[in-house]
């Protein structure tokens, strides 16, 4: 019984951690919701191709969102993810730590490159600084994912601004 309880506790902790990690997809989905068209089932299916990277590369410079770019990038990422997983299983030991290749530095640079064209007004610059600041402050104190969800509250800087 103790081991079952222990397993259940571990599973609950793992579930909670992963759900918090992915909670950021709620604000991310809301940010581009109006670009999804067609019936609800199609919007539901297409929304599943949203990941951080496919969402970010599909953001247009002056605001707005290119749904086709997101779908293409999302499908490509999904395929590469699966291929990468199998390759990693097969020859991962030979590659060793992928961060040796600097892959972990590629992601913040990608998001920075996509953030800068978004900063088309003082309000948006203030929003980005506040969002980044919220995330930075929370990182040591909250589980992964929560800093990003909390940072989305910085969008309130845009309150009262006409589109």
């Amino acid at each position, binding site marked *: 019984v103790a081991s079952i309880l222990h397993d259940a506790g571990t599973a609950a902790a793992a579930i909670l951690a992963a759900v918090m990690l*992915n909670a950021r997809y709620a604000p991310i989905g809301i*940010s581009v919701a*109006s670009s999804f068209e067609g019936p609800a089932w199609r919007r539901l299916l297409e929304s599943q191709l949203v990941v951080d990277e496919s969402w970010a590369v599909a953001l247009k410079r002056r605001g707005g969102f290119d749904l086709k770019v997101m779908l293409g990038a999302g499908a490509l990422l999904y395929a590469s993810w699966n291929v990468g997983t199998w390759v990693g299983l097969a020859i991962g030991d030979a590659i060793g730590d992928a961060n040796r290749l600097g892959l972990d530095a*590629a992601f913040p640079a*990608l998001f920075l490159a996509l953030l800068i064209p978004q900063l088309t007004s003082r309000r948006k610059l203030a929003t980005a600084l506040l969002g980044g600041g919220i995330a930075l402050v929370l990182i040591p104190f909250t589980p992964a994912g929560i800093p990003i969800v909390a940072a989305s509250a910085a969008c309130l800087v845009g309150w009262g*601004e006409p589109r």
Partner: protein
Amino acid sequence: VSAVWLTVVVVGAATIAFKATGPVLLGRGRELPGWLSGPVSHLAPAVLAALVVTQAVAGHRSIVFDARLEGLAAGAVAVVLRAPLLVVVIAAAATAALVRLV
């Protein structure tokens, strides 16, 4: 059902729901109600900035300064020089790799 499968199913269902919330409830090309459009149009810079920060310095419940920062700085320089996205990403990765090598 094993704990692993339970975890996969619950997390999968929650993630599907998170992703679908906006597009299903607010989608269909409709204009958002006026009071929402300001904040929603500011979500992207807020979340992107948080992604930059977490990807650059987050460790396990800690802030870690490592070669990612040099990589990010190199990427920032590439952005300022108006380099294409792929060049920005490669500059960042190559710089971080170089810093770790020496």
